[in-house]
């Protein structure tokens, strides 16, 4: 098992580092107090990302009446969440497009799940009893499950055995089964990737503790709970990542931090579904 852990960490270390603009964007987007002007400064330094941004704003997805050629205006139309999604899709597309064979998932499912979690986490953040920056919740959601791409190949052939083990009650959730098989679960692998990429807090904490939000540093508690619930909502709407879908525990202590009722949840599901379709459409146009 120790050698498997070493092999997983070798995969992390061999993962291509993020482009300076993607890293810069995540650095800005993870700050509690940031605004769109900070994002503009990063995008302007990357000619390719600026060009993609202009292409996106002038695409059918935004249906603007006149052509936008000024990057500042384009960014104000598109907004931070689209830009972070665009930048991450560009910078880590190879990881998001992983076929998730170890989960018997399909190519594209990891991106869809992370994107839907990002949208849901942002919506859940609106119901937090403590103030959370919804855009930070979005960014954390977009990165929360990247560890699955790292460990997927090490899990090939295991889903049937894991599901049986879960049904027999030998493990309490899918992440525990991963740890039992590999000595490391996807949250730990994702955290190692976040360190390799030198991502700033709270992103590494959200990745590491999105299934055990109570373990996160108090400072990030509400945010990590928002990502925890966002992840659950994405799975509930059918956007999982294969055999592990719905095979995690909901931490009931969310009620201390997030004031959500069943009508709010139904509204969140409806809203993220619409937003997801729009984002997907624009990404396809730009791809």
């Amino acid at each position: 098992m120790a050698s498997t852990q070493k092999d997983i960490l070798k995969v992390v270390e061999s993962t291509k580092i993020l482009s300076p603009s993607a890293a810069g964007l995540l650095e800005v987007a993870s700050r509690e107090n940031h605004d769109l002007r900070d994002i503009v400064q990063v995008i302007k330094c990357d000619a390719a990302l600026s060009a993609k941004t202009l292409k996106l704003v002038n695409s059918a997805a935004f249906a603007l009446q006149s052509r936008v050629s000024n990057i500042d205006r384009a960014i104000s139309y598109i907004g931070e969440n689209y830009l972070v999604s665009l930048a991450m899709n560009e910078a880590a597309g190879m990881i998001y497009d992983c076929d998730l064979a170890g989960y018997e998932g399909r190519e594209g499912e990891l991106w869809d799940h992370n994107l839907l979690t990002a949208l849901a986490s942002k919506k859940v953040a609106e119901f937090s009893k403590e103030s959370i920056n919804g855009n930070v919740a979005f960014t954390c959601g977009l990165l929360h499950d990247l560890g699955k791409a790292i460990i997927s190949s090490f899990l090939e052939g295991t889903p049937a055995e894991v599901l049986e083990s879960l049904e027999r009650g030998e493990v309490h959730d899918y992440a525990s089964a991963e740890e039992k098989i590999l000595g490391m679960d996807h949250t730990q692998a994702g955290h190692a990737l976040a360190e390799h990429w030198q991502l700033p807090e709270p992103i590494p904490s959200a990745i590491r503790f999105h299934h055990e939000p109570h373990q996160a540093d108090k400072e990030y508690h509400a945010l990590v709970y928002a990502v925890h619930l966002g992840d659950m909502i994405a799975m509930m709407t059918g956007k999982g990542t294969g055999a592990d879908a719905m095979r995690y525990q909901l931490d009931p202590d969310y009620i201390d931090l997030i004031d959500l009722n069943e009508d709010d949840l139904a509204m969140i599901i409806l809203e993220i579904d619409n937003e997801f379709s729009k984002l997907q459409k624009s990404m396809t146009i730009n791809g």
Partner: protein
Amino acid sequence: MVHIALPDSSINSEKAQSQPGYFADTGIPALIREMMALGCTGGPKQMIAKIAGGSNVMDPRNVFSIGKRNVLAVKKVLWKYGVSPRAEEVGGTLSRTVTVSAKNGAVTLSSPGKNNWTL
């Protein structure tokens, strides 16, 4: 076949108009109307209904029990039409993909990590 996401359309009537299948209370009537328009002239009581899905996460407050509420809402609408489901596989924590054979009506369920099975 209709894929229900939420139990009640009252939260967004516009969506219920454009995508009735999204909600149980508008999706089942829309499915029945379509089937009758396509030749099921015997009406709902002549139709065979099968239900699959409605998986849940464990939540003591039941806020996250959307799957359970979807199943109840579907059964309630079917009951109004006098239709009893011929078969069902609902609840639990299993995510299911459903396929209906247009040739013979066979309903097949699949889930990653499991072999396909028939409902």
